[in-house]
């Protein structure tokens, strides 16, 4: 890692959810029918697999795109790599990793189908290494595919894929999409469910859950049970998710990584920034965060452009580290949105 870029070490608190098996919510499955239903799986041709993915309407949860479009458009060169994204570097969240650990055969089958379509030179499963509180070790191989342990500090996701060799193109597919592809190929099941982690200190038995797409957050929380009234319910990752107010009409989609119910929101600080410089240390993109926050606060947008606000990925590491508990990431992201708005209107 270069001298400037540091990021932060988080304790992942993944423990009860990762080792527990995935709880499946009662749901009726939809099926699709296609002409090559009976051909055995290993003789499926490339077009047939893409057709299966299209009929099953599988959405890749790592970036929200349709799986069949990604497979169709991706033409890896002769040295292409297929990376299965199972990195969950945010605390509490382990929906992608649970797939790799609890449904290994179907997961391997999914990867095999993708390999048949893309014919990459190398495939590996990327998993986050820095999980200290789990009492089992991450397997070296899953279903014959090598597991590459991505180390380093949070945010590991954007740094892992930044190391994809620029010259040869490579593709990142989420682990849940792999599982859905395997199910679609085996018993031609449509993708009607999504995987997410329900966690937080207000949940009675936090675990990984498979729920039909579109169920409300309140139903899922009632499924897992609540020990006390949560003060904050977060949808998405614990570092990049957003707090919601009405859980009953908040619907869950394939790209929501998890639901975190916290019994006590962190106490809103009344301290001014004392300029300790920790946020500058924590920023993975080596931005001067403390000055940018001041510029954003005072609304000086063109100087903010000089400070490369566009490169901020909104990972929240600076707000995590700030001893004065100031929402630095929120201020900078809001200022970034205002800058884009101003740029569109041409005032900037």
């Amino acid at each position, binding site marked *: 890692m270069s001298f400037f870029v540091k990021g932060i070490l988080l304790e992942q608190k993944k423990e009860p959810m990762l080792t527990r098996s995935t709880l499946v919510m009662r749901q009726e499955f939809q099926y699709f029918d296609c002409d090559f239903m009976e051909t055995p799986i290993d003789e499926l041709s490339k077009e047939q697999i893409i057709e299966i993915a299209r009929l099953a309407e599988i959405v890749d949860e790592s970036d929200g795109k349709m799986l069949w479009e990604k497979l169709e458009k991706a033409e890896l060169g002769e040295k292409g790599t297929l990376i299965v994204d199972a990195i969950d570097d945010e605390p509490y969240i382990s929906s992608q990793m649970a797939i790799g650990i609890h449904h290994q055969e179907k997961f391997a089958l999914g990867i095999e189908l993708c390999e048949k379509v893309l014919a990459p030179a190398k495939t590996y499963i990327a998993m986050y290494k820095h999980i200290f509180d789990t009492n089992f070790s991450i397997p070296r191989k899953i279903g014959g595919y090598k597991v590459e342990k991505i180390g380093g500090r949070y945010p590991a996701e954007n740094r892992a894929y930044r190391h994809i060799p620029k010259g040869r193109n490579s593709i990142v597919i989420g682990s849940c999409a792999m599982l859905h592809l395997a199910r679609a190929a085996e018993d031609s099941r449509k993708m009607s469910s999504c995987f997410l982690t329900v966690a937080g200190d207000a949940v009675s038995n936090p675990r990984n859950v498979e729920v039909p797409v579109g169920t409300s957050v309140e139903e899922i929380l009632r499924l897992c049970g609540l020990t006390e009234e949560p003060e904050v319910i977060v949808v998405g990752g614990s570092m990049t998710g957003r707090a919601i107010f009405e859980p009953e009409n908040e619907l869950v989609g394939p790209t929501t990584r998890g639901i975190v119910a916290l019994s006590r929101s962190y106490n809103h600080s009344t301290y*001014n920034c004392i300029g300790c410089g920790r946020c500058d240390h924590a920023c993975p993109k080596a931005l001067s965060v403390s000055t940018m926050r*001041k510029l954003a*606060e*005072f609304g*000086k947008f063109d100087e903010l452009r000089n400070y490369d606000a566009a490169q901020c990925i909104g990972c929240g590491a600076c707000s995590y580290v700030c001893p004065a508990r100031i929402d630095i990431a929120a201020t900078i992201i809001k200022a970034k949105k205002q800058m884009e708005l101003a740029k569109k209107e041409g005032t900037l």
Partner: protein
Amino acid sequence: MTYIAQFFSMMLTALFIENIIFTRAVGTSWLFYLVKRPKEIIRYTLVLAAVVTLSGAIGYPVRGLIHDTQYRHVLVPVMYIGILALVYIVVYFFVKKVLPGQFEHFGMNLGVGVFNCAALGSLLIPAGARLDFISTIGYGIGMSFGFGFAVVIMGYGLTRLEYCHVPKAFRGVPIALIYLGLLSLAFYGLVGHQLPT
């Protein structure tokens, strides 16, 4: 050889240790005017230095005559202002004719650039201290560049002031005054005693 050493020692003391703004508070309104126009600092400091050396040189013999009379407190300043006026006219037409490019940059501000407290202060203080010729010139030049140095420091400070939550009553002139006061407190630590004005 000793002249050059004397010249430079006088210049350095006037530049850092006995800075015209921080230790004697002379020329502060001109400082506030220049702080908001960072592009013009170098130009006006050079004008200041040129005017101070010219009028210091002209004024030295005349000062020798009158700085013992009973009314010296009035005559010396009036004499120096007269010389400043002459020098201003010379500089005005010199700049107008020789480098017209620079001229419209100045516009009418040349008058304010020449007739300000920093210029007269740089002339009167060596006169009050009865310095000989070389150190008068050295002191004058040192003071003008000390003025530029002070403006640069104030520039740094005031750009930083924009990002402080200054209370509403203190915004603008008051906070700049307090900032200037704290800076001259620091430089006073260097001098250690009140300088004769």
